[in-house]
């Protein structure tokens, strides 16, 4: 089952590059993620193949991330389909190895590599997969071939590659830490095996390993101050791609940090790793806060909001939060996906990303406006959306460690972000549409492009109102794994 899950996207990706018909490719683009989603559900339902002693396998943690990735991919693939149809280029054609073919292929490859990263339990394989996701997604960012999108892709590629290379040093250091004790020398470098024997590992090398891995994967995840590529990449790539990047890719990197942190916890240096995570988290919160204030580009705004939420996640892990962390990451993926898709719709309505010139979305298109509002309510942690719950439980986690200063700073940063963000959101959503932009068309009725965001919005709402018991169980068990329990 796992192999089917893993290989299908790769095969389909390569196939779609070589495919001639644009329609068939688009069909494939929708079908494969759907199939992937069904497979994930099936694996979850059967709970078969949950092995943790091999390099590739699925524990509950992977299943959870797999599920969210699959869901985001499935929903975004509809939007991608629409996007491709809209941007069809009749002259250049969409034949074999065309620009569009590569695009579609890379999306599927991205799905494949993401799945690989989630399913890999070996530190090396994980690293490899994560770097592969970077490579698969870089062409997606530069799809529009504008100077800006190329620049963004370049920065993304270079900075992430350097970051992930640094994480490789961390992996090496992990390996070195096993070399000191005879009992651990032959340990396979899988996350689980390392976690099991963590108390025998050399603490200094563990610390070095964690430092490198945190900075390395943190780059990919978007923690400040390594987040610099993120707003560029998110704002310049096509909106469905931004949704994918923010909804799935960062989660993969986060998974790496999570799993490494588990080793640290087991090794008894949790205090150290927690402190680092809290620091980076806080830094990310404040950094994104400053940049969100008076932000002039709404997709960059969303990018910085991702930085913010990665910071929250890092802090949550650092504070020893279990359930809240995973639930937050799930919620964030859905919500950010929703927001990016809506941002794409706004972009196509207004043809500008400037927050200053977009006003009166509610007048121009009520559905888009409502979704935009709902998305921001969700992302800023207002009920009845799920992030409210997860944020609250993260705060409880920080509180239970009696880190009052950190809690205060956390709340302060969230306050700054909230105030800055809503100033922009209110300006954009409400009011009268701009008069000077005669090209703005109004779209009172909901259209086909609203379907994907509506699905994501209802999912986010559902998670806030009621968590399906199987999912709740899954999250709970994953949280246990995360903390290092059996």
């Amino acid at each position, binding site marked *: 089952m796992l192999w089917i899950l893993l290989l299908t996207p790769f095969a389909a990706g390569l196939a779609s590059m070589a495919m001639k018909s644009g329609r068939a490719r688009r069909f494939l683009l929708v079908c494969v993620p759907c199939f992937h989603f069904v497979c994930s559900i099936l694996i979850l339902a059967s709970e078969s193949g949950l092995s943790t002693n091999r390099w590739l396998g699925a524990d509950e943690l992977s299943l959870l991330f797999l599920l969210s990735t699959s869901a985001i991919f499935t929903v975004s693939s509809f939007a991608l389909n629409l996007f491709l149809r809209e941007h069809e280029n009749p002259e250049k054609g969409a034949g074999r190895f065309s620009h569009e073919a590569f695009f579609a292929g890379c999306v599927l490859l991205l799905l494949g590599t993401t799945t690989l990263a989630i399913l890999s339990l070996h530190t090396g394989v994980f690293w490899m997969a994560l770097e592969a996701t970077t490579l698969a997604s870089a062409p997606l960012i530069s799809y529009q071939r504008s100077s800006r999108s190329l620049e963004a892709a370049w920065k993304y590629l270079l900075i992430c590659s350097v970051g992930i290379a640094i994480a490789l040093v961390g992996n090496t250091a992990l390996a070195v830490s096993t070399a000191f004790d005879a009992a651990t020398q032959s340990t396979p470098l899988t996350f689980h095996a390392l976690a099991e024997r963590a108390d025998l590992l050399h603490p200094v090398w563990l610390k070095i390993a964690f430092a490198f891995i945190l900075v390395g994967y943190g780059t990919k995840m978007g923690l400040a101050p390594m987040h*610099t590529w993120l707003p560029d990449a998110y704002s310049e790539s096509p909106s469905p791609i931004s949704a994918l990047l923010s909804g799935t890719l960062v989660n993969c990197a986060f998974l790496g940090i999570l799993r490494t942190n588990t080793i640290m916890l087991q090794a008894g240096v949790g205090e150290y790793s927690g402190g680092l995570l809290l620091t980076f988290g806080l830094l990310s919160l404040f*950094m994104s806060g400053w940049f969100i204030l008076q932000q002039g580009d709404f997709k960059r705004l969303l990018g910085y909001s991702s930085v913010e939420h990665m910071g929250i996640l890092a802090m949550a892990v650092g504070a020893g939060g279990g359930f809240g962390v995973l639930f937050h990451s799930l919620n964030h993926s859905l919500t950010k996906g929703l927001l990016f898709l809506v941002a794409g719709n706004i972009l196509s309505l207004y043809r500008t990303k400037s927050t200053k010139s977009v006003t009166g979305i509610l007048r121009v298109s009520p559905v888009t406006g409502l979704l935009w509002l709902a998305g921001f309510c969700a992302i800023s942690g207002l009920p009845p959306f799920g992030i409210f719950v997860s944020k609250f439980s993260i705060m409880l986690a920080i509180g239970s460690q009696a880190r009052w200063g950190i809690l205060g700073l956390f709340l302060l940063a969230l*306050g700054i972000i909230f105030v800055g963000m809503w100033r922009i959101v209110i300006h954009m959503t409400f009011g009268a549409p701009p008069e000077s932009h005669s090209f703005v068309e109004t779209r009172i009725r909901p259209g086909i492009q609203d379907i994907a965001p509506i699905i994501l919005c209802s999912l986010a709402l559902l998670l806030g109102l009621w968590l399906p018991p199987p999912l709740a169980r899954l999250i709970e068990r994953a949280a246990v794994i995360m903390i290092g329990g059996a």
Partner: protein
Amino acid sequence: MSFLIVGCLLLYVFAGVIFILMRSYPQSGTMLAPLCSTLAAIFGLVPVLNVLLSRASINISISWSSFFAPIQMRLDPLSGWFALALFIVSPLLTWYGTGYFPHKRPFEVSINGFFFQILAGGIFFVLLASDIFSFLLAWEIMSLAAFFLVIFEHEDRSVQRAGWFYLAATHLGTAFLFAMFVLLGSRCGSLDFRDFVGLGGVADVVFILALIGFGTKAGFFGLHVWLPEAHPAAPSHASALMSGLMIKTGVYGLLRIMTLADSWPGWWGWTLIGVGAVSGVGGALFALVQHDLKRLMAYSSVENIGIVCLGIGMGVFGTYSMGPAAQIAMAGALLHVLNHALFKSCLFLVAGAVTHATGTREIDLLGGLQKLMPRSGGVFLLASAAVCGLPPLNGFVGEFLIYLSSYWSVLPQELPFVDLRVGGFVVIAALALTGGLAAMCFMKAYGTTFLGLPRRQHADPVVDPKPAMLFPMFILGTLCVAFGLGGSFLILLVAPVASTLHPAALIVAETSLLRGAALNYMHVSLASFALLVLFFAFHRLRNHLLKGRVVTSGPTWGCGYPLGTARMQYTGSSFSQPLIAAFKLLLRTELSGDWPEGYLPGRSSFATHTPGVFIEFFYKPLFTFVGHMALRVKRLQTGGTHVYVLYLLLALISVLCWSLL
């Protein structure tokens, strides 16, 4: 009973959904949804009255999600008292709302109706919630619903600004609540309020956090900045609900937290009295210099919250004397909460009617409305008198009790407790100053708006609103009189609530004290009633005497100047001028305009504007500073890839230093 409570919550949601669903059928929709909302209020009123009369409390526990403890709801006398106000006011406001939007598009109106019901239900949920999670949930739902009410007329830039102000203020305030509850929760190891007895040994910190967090919602002076922005922006019945009830949840939260403490330190009392005095006097002062009718009332809400706060502060001191002061003061504060909800809603409704009829809220452009809208004017007069705390209206009841307890505290005590006596003294001074300024303020508001001659011609004929809007105003006005004359019964009703508040064993003295106060108030009612009779008797007498004589009517005497026009009348701004002169330092009113010059002056103009002193001198500089900081930090994102990699490198180096050193 629990069925009724949950039913009430669900009915509110249901009413909101009906508003949305029925927007295509305006006729039946306008009837059905308010009916549903009224039913919700009736559903809620039954358990509330039951709780208030029997002094029992109702516990409900709903498991909702598998990982958080079940939602705990609890209706006890304290929450019941606040809910009573809600259930009296909210159906009336809903009915008023059906008549409020003649020209708006159905989409917005239905959204507004939806959030109005959600706000009402949310307030009830806040009152019920008895564990951290559900409380914060309810709190946020309530705040968010109110935001959508504020932003209703969003084409207006000032409304957008108001919405942002409100949202920012409420969120920053809620951050303090989050901190407080997380502190409590982790200290006590539980989410349930019942386990917070003693406030986990960090009572003082919790109190400060609660004061700021809840104070932002309640609108303590200094934290009130959103009120004067949000109230004018929202539709009138929404402002009424926000001002009458939503801000009271701040008071409720503070009381709820205080109730959980072991004892009340003296400095709590001083803080509350200080906050109350500043809010009362400051609110009244700033109310007086406003010339936007609803803005004026927003500041008046600040003032009234100050009065409530004074009462609570007195109640804190009272616990030290084991005497009557505490309970009477608390009862006074609670009564004022209820009464303020009534008369302030009433005032907002009339203000809405005025705005509707004339198209402006600027009182200096109005005038003479008493003749054009006699019914609304009468109600406004009644409610103004109530807000000034004049007997025999309901505003007097609460103030009477707070005064009484303060006077009692300045008497020589058996135990020499200086704080109590000085505290009482301060409360008297603050209350009296507040009362005088508030009276002046509402004389100005009523006098300028309704009396004299219209200051400008209105495009449409100005008439009383239709019955859907008029009747809720009437009912509220009637309640103001009834609650004023029957104040003794109210005191008896609030007695059990006030006696459950105190942490110490004050219940010993129990309700006999309040029974005494009720008896005292009975005198007030009787005297007032007698004087009312006398008033009508004299009125008849005068008319009787005039019957056979020459009664003519003519122009107002212009003191020798025959060409007086309506524009020469004393305006609201002139009315507040002496005050502006006297309190220059605090008010910082800006005068602008073209003064007449030369022997034959041309056109000249004059305008005053009083900015919020906290906005000007605290929040604006703060936000500007943060903005500047942001601009400075933004330079970090230079755009150069090599710089970004350098950041990465620096991060790596510092992390390595951290881990190895």
